[in-house]
């Protein structure tokens, strides 16, 4: 197989070499090798124009053809504004793209060499140069301003009543932790991490007793969600394309990102006509062998369903009494309430203060 491939390649090279020799000999014979500017100049000028027209047409067609597949459906409040800014910017740069490319190839064609013509000696023109410096500057200023407004809104402080959860990256999966009924995430320490205590819960801290871990992310629709993001080994990045959310997970430096989901998983399934649809969280910072498979499903629930889901969870301390016992031994402290369930009342109240 390989021998055959190499043989074919060699054969191809020989044929190619022969053709090349023949081409050189004929060009010497026809005298075109000594002519300074031959027909190839004209051919290339025409090809420039052909490239512009056919290339432009192909690009327009393929762009339109793939447009439907290009945009991940949006499911967050800021996602819509970002999307608008994105396509406005795309239109602006699209106009510049078309104008400049057309001029480039059209000029190349139009001003191809002609015997006896002399190029126009035109070294500079201050007025026109000032104009085409200022116009991009103004457009850029507008885009910077729009982007800056959007950026400060997205990265501004999360609303006080946000649902808080923690996402922690590790090689090669995501771990999720919710604060439980006290709405406070307990203290963790990376030195306490082991096979069962994957977060490194320090259960001497009482606010950690009701924390619960989950196999997937659940968030309520229409309510701000604050992701607290950590990593316990190398860099990872929380990337949730449908929510237009992305933030690095950095060991030793907790990061955060808040957003408001707008479409439940069920609504999105109905909208897309795809009953198997899931919101997905992908790792988007190279982290090793399993980087490409670091996936976590995200479920957007109706607020009621979310409260019900939280109610069904068991706190980490409840599920792992031995971890608690071990920690207690170590510290010599007596933790009064040994096990704290992840209760729902507080969570419900947070989502709907009227309750």
């Amino acid at each position, binding site marked *: 197989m390989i021998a055959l491939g190499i043989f074919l390649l060699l054969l191809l090279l020989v044929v190619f070499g022969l053709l090349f020799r023949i081409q050189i000999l004929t060009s010497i014979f026809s005298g075109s090798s000594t002519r300074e500017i031959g027909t190839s100049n004209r051919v290339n*000028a025409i090809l420039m124009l052909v490239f512009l027209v056919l290339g432009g047409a192909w690009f327009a067609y393929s762009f339109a053809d793939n447009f439907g597949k290009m945009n991940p459906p949006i499911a967050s409040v800021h996602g819509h504004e970002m999307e608008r800014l*994105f396509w406005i910017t795309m239109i602006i740069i699209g106009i510049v793209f078309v104008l400049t*490319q057309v001029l480039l190839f059209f000029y190349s064609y139009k001003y191809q060499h002609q015997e006896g013509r002399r190029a126009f*000696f035109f070294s500079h023109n201050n007025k026109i140069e000032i104009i085409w410096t200022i116009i991009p500057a103004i457009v850029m200023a507008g885009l910077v301003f729009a982007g800056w407004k959007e950026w400060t809104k997205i990265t501004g402080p999360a609303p006080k009543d946000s649902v808080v959860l923690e996402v922690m990256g590790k090689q090669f999966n995501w771990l999720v932790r919710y604060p439980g009924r006290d709405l406070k995430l307990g203290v963790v320490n990376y030195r306490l991490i082991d096979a069962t205590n994957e977060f490194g819960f320090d259960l001497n801290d009482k606010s950690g007793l009701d924390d619960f871990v989950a196999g997937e992310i659940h968030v309520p629709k229409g309510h701000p969600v604050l992701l607290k993001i950590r990593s316990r080994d190398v860099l990872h990045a929380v990337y949730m394309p449908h929510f237009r959310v992305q933030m690095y997970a950095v060991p*030793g430096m907790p*990061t955060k990102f808040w957003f408001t989901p707008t479409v439940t998983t069920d609504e999105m399934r109905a909208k897309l006509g795809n009953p198997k649809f899931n919101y997905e969280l992908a790792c988007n910072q190279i982290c090793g062998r399993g980087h490409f498979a670091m996936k976590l499903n995200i479920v957007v629930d109706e607020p009621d369903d979310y409260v019900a889901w939280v109610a069904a969870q068991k706190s980490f301390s409840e599920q792992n009494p031995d971890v608690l016992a071990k920690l207690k031994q170590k510290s010599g402290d007596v933790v009064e309430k040994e096990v704290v369930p992840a209760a729902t009342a507080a969570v419900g109240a947070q989502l709907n203060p009227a309750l």
Partner: protein
Amino acid sequence: MAANIPTNSQVQGGIGAAVPHTGHDEHHDEHDHHDQHWLFKYVFSQDHKVIAKQFLITGIFWAILGGTLSSLFRLQLGWPESTMEWLTPFLGKWIEAGKLNPEFYLALVTMHGTIMVFFVLTAGLSGTFSNFLIPLQVGARDMASGFMNMLSYWFFFLSSVIMFTSLFLETGPASAGWTIYPPLSALPQAIPGSGMGMTLWLVSMALFIVSQLLGGVNYITTVINLRTRGMSMSKLPLTIWAFFLTAILGLLSFPVLFSAALLLIFDRSFGTSFFLSDIYIAGQALPNVGGSPILFQHLFWFLGHPEVYIVIMPAMGMVSEILATNSRKPIFGYRAMIGSLMGISLLSFVVWAHHMFITGMNPFLGSVFMFLTLIIAVPSAVKTFNWLATLWRGNIRFTTAMMFSIGFVSLFISGGLTGIILGNAALDIQMHNTYFVVAHFHLVMGSSAFFGLFAGVYHWFPKMFGRMMDEKLGYIHFWLTFLGVYLVFLPMHYVGIAGFPRRYYAWTGFDTFSQFADLNKFISVAAILAFFAQFVFIINFFYSIFRGRRATENPWNSTTLEWTTPVVPGHGNWPGAIPAVYRWPYDYSKPGAEQDFIPQNVPYSQTQSSNLPYEREME
């Protein structure tokens, strides 16, 4: 042309302002025909032209290797389900049960990036043409320090050998991405490539930086001190301005990468915690506390961003020169071109953190860097408009170099415009690390710089080897490459807008990234074909060195000084005195002139019919 070269007496008569090397001239005349041992003539040569060719040929070697690596991972991305058994003879144990090893996949993308950015587009491009053109175009016998220049190449060679060796390690070469972010690059427990592979990477890069600094100091000194009589800074060809500013960028930014590499070496080997904190890996909590991985990114991108301009500015300079020569027109807005190069150089130092919008950096910093980043679009736009205006009403000769220069402008526009999206912090949240970024920088710095490199090789080949490259093969090479580049990178934007993350071994695990399997196959086919098209160039290049049509002294009717040298300039470049310079380098198609070009070394007194009013005073 010989008639235009001023006689010795003219040159000798004008000893005054800028002839620091007159004494040097005499010295050279004595030694010109000295027989050198071949080892010192071709290998340990101190002649800038030989060193340039050494950089070029080493660069070509690296480019073939870098391209091969990309073909390998495009095979994986195009056909993630297919067997790769047939690659076992080449890749050995990296093919496991017919599948490419995912860690080796990461090694492939890492080494592809490292090789292309540093070894091809920095050393191969800037090393070749700064070396070749600076002395020839400013009118110097050689670089300021031939010995340091030789060291520059040999440090690069040593660095190349080490990097090449790392490809064959049992644990594989560096695999943490070309940006080698710690902790992944610091911990062999995290990925085997961060063991010996990473050590060799760091050692190799340290030597590479030494090579860059030795070269850079030389380029700067030569441009400042060794210009021939009359060659004021405002008469320098744009190539020289570009190389000069590139060297300054390199000199100021590479040491910062060196410091980052050094701190990383400390973290890896001596137990420090510059970049490490709170890490639990492979069943063990590491003792390191208090370091910051983000600090590394700041240090890395403080070089990394100027680096992309280090790559692109020499290409911009050469393209400006080639566009003017072959449009037979002065470059439009010579001063604006210099001004925009300076603007880009200055701004390139204050935009680095736009690579880090979403690392958890303070959002206020993000706003500042977004503002500075989008400003840099202005000088880039000015350059583009000036190139277009240079073509306007020209009399264009489509030499192969010209084709590649036009291609450069096209790719620079296409890739540059998407930078406006990525420089916008709000939009970068979605686009960061997706294929949109990959498509963007492959167009604007990867392919563009390659096109600049090709343009330069086709244009200055006659001066390098005294022979012409074959034009027909050049055209075939151009059209295949140009089409190939667009067929690869335009569709890649679609994949990026859809959010496909880069450095993924396969996307099949995600429903979100399932829709573009066909397009990825298409991209892979186009990429591999475009890669094979490069062999047209390689064949043309090596064939023409030995069998190409013989060149004349000035085959493109160009105005700059290198074309006043003999067909193959010897050691010392000019057999007689160095010509003096009287005019700017872009007197093409000047009204009233006999020919459509007036070389820089022709005094105004000889061109009275074409002198402009203010030039009459200088007759």
